[in-house]
């Protein structure tokens, strides 16, 4: 698509009518095109008129749940968001920004959950997820005969990946796990493969994830996927309950 043609996507973008690839390309374009940014904002404003037509109050249980959820989650600090506005939002920059705030004594909140659990409590968490009454499972079978099961318990708030017969990751590479949150793939752990069974407690709160994925990344992992996922889990699909 030519640069000239990409402007034509502004209308579709404003109503989320682009596929993932077009959306990513258009967002790259938005970063450098003020005219499109202005148009998108105006059109998004116009879509408010459409949502005038469909108001439906949610049950009070939703309010109760939301108010309970927010007590467990800290908002991104305003100072950090201001820094983000002037720099592309990549994990490496966010972590560097947090370090700067720390040096200045700003009491920066660590954005990504630091893995402070020792191996014993990680094992506890894995067991709690797998034994929880509300655990859900999603399974992927690979052509090689390997398989992977992602298990999530909302009451525990974590997800676990169990991979069976995964061949070792290529030399210099690693399997990386992701949780899909708000349209982005968020890093959630690394795995080597090569064992009959590997179990990984995925990083972070799994309750606001809409899915998960596995990619092959350079050793040490990446801040966002650099390759096409080898497996994708979609939490919107009915899970299969099975004995592991």
């Amino acid at each position: 698509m030519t640069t000239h043609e990409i402007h034509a996507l502004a209308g579709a973008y404003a109503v989320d009518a682009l596929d993932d690839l077009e959306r990513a390309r258009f967002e790259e374009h938005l970063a450098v095109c003020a005219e499109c940014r202005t148009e998108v904002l105006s059109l998004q404003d116009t879509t408010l008129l459409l949502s005038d037509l469909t108001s439906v109050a949610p049950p009070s249980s939703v309010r109760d749940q939301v108010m309970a959820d927010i007590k467990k989650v800290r908002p991104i600090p305003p100072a950090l968001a201001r820094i983000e506005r002037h720099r592309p939002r990549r994990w490496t920059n966010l972590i560097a920004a947090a370090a700067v705030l720390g040096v200045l004594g700003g009491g920066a909140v660590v954005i990504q959950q630091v893995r402070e659990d020792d191996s014993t409590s990680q094992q506890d968490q894995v067991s709690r997820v797998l034994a929880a009454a509300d655990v859900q499972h999603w399974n992927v079978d690979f052509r090689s005969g390997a398989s992977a099961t992602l298990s999530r318990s909302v009451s525990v708030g974590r997800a676990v990946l169990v991979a069976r017969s995964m061949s070792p990751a290529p030399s210099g590479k690693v399997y990386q796990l992701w949780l899909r949150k708000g349209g982005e793939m968020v890093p959630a752990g690394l795995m080597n493969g090569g064992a009959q069974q590997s179990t990984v407690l995925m990083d972070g709160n799994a309750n606001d994830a809409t899915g998960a994925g596995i990619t092959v990344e350079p050793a040490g992992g990446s801040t966002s996927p650099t390759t096409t996922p080898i497996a994708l889990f979609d939490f919107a699909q009915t899970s299969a309950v099975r004995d592991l």
Partner: protein
Amino acid sequence: MSSLQPVSSGDPSPEETGVAAHLAGCLRRSARGDEQAFAELYDATSARVHGLVLRVIRDPAQAEEVTQEVFLQVWRTAARFDEAKGSALAWLMTLAHRRAVDRVRAAVAVTRQDTSYHQNSQTLPHDSTAEAVEASMEARRVRSALLELTSVQREALELAYFGGYTHTEVATMLDLPVGTAKTRIRDGLIRLRDAMGAGQ
């Protein structure tokens, strides 16, 4: 609470400005962890959010989940709202719409049953005899403004905004040449914007 008025293309009325400023203030305070401010924001906007999510996702249980997720994301990321770039309501509804569309697309492979969009549940008036279920004055104004769009523009907007379809899918469904649906969507929005602005 009276229905919220979006900021339209003309000069906002004092009431609109007041509502918009209140929401922006709630969002700013939420970013600092003010749960009371966030509760006010929720109470002012949850029907709009949930109604849209429900229309896109259709399944009430999933819609409730997504509405919850949306507000949690609003809480977590409130500091990213930049007042210079549009209203708090637009920021919030853009976030909500995107999550609803992402969720429904993830479910497409298994459960999408919208193969015929000629169901009775069309949201936008397709002819002048469509029942106006919405009582609010604002909604009535929007419905009559929509009648100024061509039927293709209206249908394209319906499928894209409320159906969560991509513009290429919309082109196929409406039997349009590839690439023209995105123009219809854009033109429809502009015409709607102008029709509402002219009526001030």
